[in-house]
């Protein structure tokens, strides 16, 4: 064996050891700072983790772009939804007077809110873009209450790490980490372009998460739950989206 090849082997060994140790350290740091998404397993796990970690690091507190009023789309496209359930039709027949959103889990004061109660809280508006993972988009003015406001009313316990939100329609739910949930542009939305939120756009109540793609803005919200562990919900991937093959983190 020549000196050069011995040196090469030693150096390669050192590099490999450093690489493995580095990856291990990176994983520990990433976990500590909440940079690992719930759907980090599987063959696309590394990519999902890089997307989530990178954007958490560069954009944790950034605001989604807002637009001037004259950029509001004249023809916002309501995406296809499944035929409404009986439960939805029943509430719709009553003019959504009995629509309620309940909040439970790791909170001090679990409770439920009517649409009128939500409307009585500080009213916020944002003119932001809905961008679908398919590629199309539109800009609209969204009116509602900040999710952070509702969370402050129920009192979130410090150990809570995620807000899980459920549609009245079956198998339609998603979750946000606390940064995204407390973000000033994350709304429970009841109005759109100066009128009540149309059913096609998720009325009477839609989660609005403008820093992520449209599918994160789940329609027809009836329940929120706070948890520190997404493993027990559904297949444990954090939302219904990964169960259908889509990323939990939809910021890209």
């Amino acid at each position: 064996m020549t000196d050069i090849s011995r040196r090469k082997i030693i150096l390669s060994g050192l590099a490999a050891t450093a690489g493995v140790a580095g990856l291990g350290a990176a994983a520990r740091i990433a976990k500590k700072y909440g940079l690992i998404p719930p759907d980090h397993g599987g063959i696309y796990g590394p990519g999902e983790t890089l997307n989530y970690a990178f954007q958490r690091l560069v954009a944790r507190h950034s605001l989604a772009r807002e637009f001037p009023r004259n950029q509001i789309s004249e023809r916002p496209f309501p995406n296809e939804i499944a035929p409404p359930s009986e439960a939805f039709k029943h509430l719709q027949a009553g003019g959504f007077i009995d629509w309620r959103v309940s909040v439970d889990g790791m909170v001090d004061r679990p409770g439920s809110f009517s649409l009128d109660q939500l409307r009585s809280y500080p009213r916020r508006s944002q003119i932001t873009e809905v961008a679908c993972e398919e590629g199309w988009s539109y800009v609209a003015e969204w009116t509602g209450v900040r999710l952070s406001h509702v969370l402050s009313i129920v009192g979130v316990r410090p150990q809570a790490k995620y807000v899980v939100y459920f549609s009245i329609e079956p198998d339609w739910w998603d979750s946000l980490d606390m940064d995204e949930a407390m973000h000033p542009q994350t709304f429970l939305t009841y109005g759109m372009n100066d009128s009540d939120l149309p059913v096609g756009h998720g009325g009477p109540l839609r989660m609005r998460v403008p820093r992520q793609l449209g599918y994160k803005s789940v329609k027809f919200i009836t329940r929120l739950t706070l948890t520190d562990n997404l493993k027990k919900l559904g297949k444990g991937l954090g939302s219904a989206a990964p169960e259908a093959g889509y990323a939990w983190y939809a910021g890209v």
Partner: protein
Amino acid sequence: MSTPDSAQAFPQASVRSSAPAQATIARNTRHSALVRITHWITTLCFFALLLTGIEILISHPRFYWGETGNDLTTPLFRIPIPSSRNLVPTGYGYVLPDQNGWSRSLHFQAAWVTVLTGALYLIAGFFTGHFRKNLAPGKTDLSWRALSAAIVSHLRFRRPSEEEAWSYNLLQRLTYLTVIFVLFPLVIWTGLAMSPTFTAAFPSTVTLLGGRQTARTIHFLVSIALVLFLLVHIVMICLAGFWTRARAMVTGRTGTRMERT
């Protein structure tokens, strides 16, 4: 390498003689290991990005200009193919299976590998002088006369001489530089400009382009340009001798000995 005998007899000389021996080996390597490895990683990722990009395109084969655009607005142009979504007006009476989920995941994973590989290639390329030595055109080459001569020689499909197997000609240099420093940066930029979180942090990355839908359209057009490059690249390799060129990019050797004068 010198024999053990001579090494014992002339230890000093053997150390010195190893230098020219190494230089000969280096001269017989057409492409450095780094260029070869990054080339094939990028190739693999490019095919993954192309396949998944087509799958994502199928879910909405319409393109727009400006900030917004959807099924209710007039497209800039549309691709005459069926779609994987019900509501897209394609004129076809059927809908293709939805493959967006894994396509998006693989698209971004391959993009990460491409970007990291590209960064390694760029850093190493500047440090080793790869760009200066192998890709930057010589001053005398950058004349209209030299350029038209190179184009004419290409149009006549003249097989390159053995000498040319050891370096890039002017058109190759300009094409590779365009791919490396214009098309790849542009396709990465327009890709990032479609991310709602990335543009929250860096809004100018999308406003400079003129909006999200413009970014998407440019992303598509640059992808087409990269596919055209790939096709020409493969045709040129076939014309120049597929196996010797492919072997040079795999093993680093060309099979012909280069005697520099």
